[in-house]
């Protein structure tokens, strides 16, 4: 996909994400919005190998969503790519449905259970080491939250990955500056985050996490690394990206828009989707 198409896909997915959450009456929309471009670049930009019709294909790259609360973006991608039926999103968080508020391995395309933070990098490191031990060429990519870096287990895994020179491991930090109720720098300082990861033996690349040019540039190294260090992509993002009143706000972690906020959010997400018919149908649904 070219950049315009990736951008269009991101806009479509944001509408699907909001739609799913509104139907369910729950869901972490802003944490999902902040990594939409990261997910779209990985899955639609040609940087990951996968087969939607064969989710367990041995040669696939392993994608681990460590920030499980951002799962609506992953669900929207999996539905769009055909890992799961498109209509599955409509029953997000409905009792007994496979798509819960955090992802698990009953969902085709989901490799691990996540939602409790600080697990994904360690499992990813084990996978990456396993690939090397078994002479497998697949790579491991994990997306973590920035607040997640307050978990001690992240740093145990960071040490392990660099010690074992896991150059087949890429960790992306969705650096939206916010945890659940507070800015990370206010509750527990993460900065200088880049230096900290470098000190733990990682190659670190800081990028604009909403720029497809920059995402494509850094993700094009997946499978073609020349360094022996694992790669940390520090993606500067905006939590709630795409809806102005959600963006970078401590009030918007798992809050959902209500009343006029719904119309306002849909209007802001409309522009790139004006011809898709998505917005009109969604407004009708949520008006009802």
């Amino acid at each position, binding site marked *: 996909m070219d950049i315009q198409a990736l951008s269009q896909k991101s806009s479509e997915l944001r509408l699907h994400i909001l739609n799913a959450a509104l139907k369910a009456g729950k869901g972490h929309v802003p944490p999902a919005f902040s990594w939409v471009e990261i997910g779209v670049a990985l899955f639609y930009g040609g940087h990951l190998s996968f087969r939607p019709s064969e989710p367990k294909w041995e040669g696939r790259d392993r994608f681990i969503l460590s920030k499980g609360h951002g799962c609506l973006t992953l669900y929207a991608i999996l539905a769009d790519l055909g890992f799961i039926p498109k209509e599955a999103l409509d029953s997000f968080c409905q009792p007994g449905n496979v798509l819960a508020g955090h992802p698990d391995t009953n969902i085709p395309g989901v490799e691990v259970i996540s939602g409790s933070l600080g697990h994904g*990098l*360690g*499992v990813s490191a084990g996978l990456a080491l396993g690939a090397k031990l*078994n002479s497998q060429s697949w790579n491991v990519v994990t997306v973590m939250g920035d607040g997640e870096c307050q978990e001690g287990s992240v740093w145990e*895994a960071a*040490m392990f990955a660099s*010690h074992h020179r896991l150059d087949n491991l890429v960790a992306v930090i969705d650096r939206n500056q916010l945890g659940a109720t507070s800015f990370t720098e206010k509750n527990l300082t993460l900065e200088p985050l880049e230096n900290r990861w470098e000190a733990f033996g990682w190659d670190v690349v800081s990028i604009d996490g909403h720029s497809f040019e920059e995402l494509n540039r850094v993700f094009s190294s997946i499978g073609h690394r020349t360094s022996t260090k694992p790669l940390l992509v520090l993606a500067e993002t905006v939590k709630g990206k795409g809806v102005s009143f959600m963006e970078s706000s401590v009030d918007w972690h798992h809050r959902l828009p209500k009343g006029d906020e719904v119309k306002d959010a849909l209007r802001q997400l409309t522009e790139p989707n004006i011809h898709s018919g998505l917005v009109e149908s969604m407004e009708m649904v949520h008006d009802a």
Partner: protein
Amino acid sequence: MMRDFRDAVFDGVLEVVAQDPRVMVLTNDMGAMGLSQIQESFPKQVLNVGISEQNMMSVAAGLALSGSMVFAYGIASHITSRCYEQLKLDVCALNVPVVILGMGSGLSYGIDGPTHHSTHDCALLQTLPEMTIYIPADGVATKAIVARAYRERTPAYIRIDKDPYEPIYTAEIHDFSLGNSTVQEGESLCVVTNGIMLHRVREVATELLREGIELTIIDLYRLNPCNESLLLEACHGAQAIVTVEEHGRFGGIGNLVGRLLSEQGIRIPFKGISLSDETMFGAASRSWAHAKYGLDKENLKNELRQMALFPMTV
């Protein structure tokens, strides 16, 4: 002759490491002579992950997801409770072949203080339905159980004692697939125990026999999943049942047998003898703690005699 459980563990691990290059042994910087020998012969299959139990279990799960079968070795109290959530989510919920080799069951490390007392481990791990829990009483059992855990390819915990043991089993007789075995049969009383306490109960049984009191002794070497029908069959006809374990009151043999009797509507005198759940400060040596909590030979003898002769008064 007294023997070391660690030798039995690593004899068993060596056999599977030698036959399967996909077996990995992780240690959280915990050593053992047997482990060093494996490392010398198969250096690529042994990995010291450093002092990081949470990461050890996540890495073990990742390795297992990529096709390895993993043994994770460390001090029992640390590699069960420190990383409980990793065991719950990364290992058990994904049902991957990771076998915990927990060194220092119960009060093996008693004098090292409360950080090293592994007296809640079975309670914690019993909440994880995928986790098979083994508590072997001798080297034959230990080695057979290691081989069994390798073949089963599911999460397992092997609780290993640090103190030496006298052999009980012979390999030709037991394959340790059933979950519990009747070590001796007697008319007076049924005692359910395992691990290091099995030896103590056998000693007591020998002395009580001189008084005409005959014990049935059941070795519950697999706590989870419990072979309940076999256990009930072995207890059938007993006048009373006593459980003896070096573990806290909750989540061990006593809870299990008590629930089983209650659910089955079996009205029979029952007593659970275990450690307390309180934190034991200071140098709680095994013999000191056993005397304090009633797991020493004299107290056990008195308790078992009382239950055998006057079960309804207890």
